[in-house]
């Protein structure tokens, strides 16, 4: 592997990892605070992608489309929380998993009804098209750099919200001792909806950023969600730091294994081994630490 290829793949890996982190934030916050595992989080990713396509087609401007689409995802997410998840707090894991599984069935089919079964393509914004030289001899697509930048900005916003705002203090307190926050008279219902909407916004935004790279199609969020769960298991459930670490590890590992494993074990075996790589990594973490690298919640 040449140095140029290494740098390029490292950038790809970090970008993919940050994308996974945008997904993981919502899953881990919702789990850490509400103790709910939301399988429909992948649907929010998908809805984000579709809403972006629809808004770009309607307005022709990304500057208008992105905020409108994010607002749309937040509304969908809040509705999901109020209508389906709220009655399920305090229920068993099975009920929550099945209900959110039912939601993914609904959303995967609803987008087909609205937009059809064919994958949709959305062009890369004109301003971000093309590539630039990041190192001597390494040309890198501007759009991928922009995604990395946007994801980093999201991470920074999240950091400020969590560490420096009242909402963030409540979120931290809630994931530590939910009952105590409730006992202090905080409107816990509103807090839950806010946390869920925040997670939805990040997931939808990840879907929007991914839209121009892949195509937007039904079920696109589900494999991403499962990989996100792998990140969370590796990083430790319920911890944002763990989610970041797990996402970056999986993002970089996934990218490099796709490039290098076929070279090492041969092309035919390579495809099978590549598919397994992330899960083998998760298995290794499970063998050495049952709770992941940065466990915030045990049990």
């Amino acid at each position, binding site marked *: 592997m040449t140095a140029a290829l290494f740098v390029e793949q490292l950038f790809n890996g970090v970008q993919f990892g940050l994308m996974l982190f945008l997904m993981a934030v919502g899953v881990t916050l919702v*789990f850490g605070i509400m*103790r709910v*595992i939301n399988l429909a989080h992948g649907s929010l990713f998908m809805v984000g992608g579709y809403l972006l396509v629809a808004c770009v087609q309607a307005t022709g401007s990304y500057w208008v489309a992105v905020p409108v689409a994010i607002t749309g995802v937040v509304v969908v997410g809040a509705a999901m929380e109020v209508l*389906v998840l709220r*009655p*399920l707090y305090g*229920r068993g*894991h*099975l*009920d929550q*998993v*099945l*209900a959110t*599984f*039912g*939601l*993914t*069935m*609904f*959303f*995967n*089919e*609803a987008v*087909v*009804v609205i937009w059809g079964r064919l994958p949709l393509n959305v062009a890369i914004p004109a301003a971000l098209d093309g590539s630039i030289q990041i190192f001597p001899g390494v040309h890198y697509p501007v759009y991928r750099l922009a995604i990395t930048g946007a994801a980093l900005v999201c991470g920074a916003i999240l950091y400020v919200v969590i560490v420096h705002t009242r909402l963030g203090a409540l979120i931290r307190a809630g994931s530590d001792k939910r009952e105590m926050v409730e006992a202090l008279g905080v409107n816990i219902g509103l807090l839950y909806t806010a946390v869920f909407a925040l997670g939805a916004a990040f997931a939808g935004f990840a879907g929007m950023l991914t839209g121009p790279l892949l195509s937007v199609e039904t079920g696109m969020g*589900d*494999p991403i969600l*499962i990989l996100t*769960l*792998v990140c*969370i*298991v590796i990083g430790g*459930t319920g911890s944002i730091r763990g989610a970041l670490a797990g996402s970056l590890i999986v993002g970089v590992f996934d990218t490099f294994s796709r490039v290098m494993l076929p070279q090492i074990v041969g092309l*035919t075996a390579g*495809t*099978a081994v*590549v*598919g*397994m790589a*992330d*899960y083998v990594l*998760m*298995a290794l973490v*499970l*063998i050495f630490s*049952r*709770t992941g690298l940065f466990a915030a919640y045990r*049990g």
Partner: protein
Amino acid sequence: MGLSRRTIVHLVLLAAALAVPLSNDIYYTRFATQIAIYGMAAMSCDLLLGYGGMVTFGQAAFFGVGAYATGMLTLAGFHDALIVWPLAMLAAMGFALVIGALSIRAQGFQFIMVTLAFGQMTYYIAQALRDYGGDNGFTMPRRNTFAGVTLANHVLFYYVTLALLVIVLFLCSRLVRSEFGMVIRGRRDNERRLAAIGIPPYRYKLALFVIAGAVAGLGGALMANHARFVSPALLSFQVSGQFLAMVILGSAGTLIGPVFGAAIYLVFQQVLSDYTDHWMIFFGPLLVARVMFVKEGVWGMILAALRAHEPTPAPLPAEEGAAE
């Protein structure tokens, strides 16, 4: 004592299942075959869920491994079901042993995530089998033979499937009431106490996981023969979710309930898809509603109705009544 009401219900159900081919419409026979196969897979899920308290979201992996092993062995020239199906079960058990040994280390929510992830891994492995059609899967040239008799006849294949379902149901119901089953149920209710009396839970959980994998693998072997087509779609996480939905529709922890659940699920799917291609848009919310508003699955409701009409309730009805 005579026959208990529950035994009568079982006999009526069995008679109804046996009578399906009398309809003379091969469509119903094939549909009933499908119900029996999915019922078997859902039952394997119920072993883990209803008795072990383990919410697994990866059972489709073992179903798929059973189907792939069957298809591959058939293509390799092995046609006798008595050789192919046990080998398919063994393959599924091998996967279940490895995946189970790792997954069981995780608890609660993590277990769900980990089984979901390993299920997805198995899906990608199936997808990578380029010699076997990759993403598109492959067709089995013909069904297996059973001790020399071809299973190409749909009615005969249905009766073989039904017989296997009844045998597996019987064996599983013995298993969950055996000493092994008591340990499993005891662990579900209080793992710490079980450990305190000197029984290591891990190996019991793993054994249950492997047994459930074997049952799902047999279901997969039957599925490969039923459809004569095997593809990664059999291993997708949606199929794992389907199995769980079937268990819940029929009542967890009853073994026979999930077979009902499979029937309800498939009938719903069939009826809805007569009206619309987009049946999932209705089924998804139905599943949500079932979880939110209905406490009991169909078999549980039937049992409750039977108990209400039982003239003299025996002591410990749940335990005694479950005996047959």
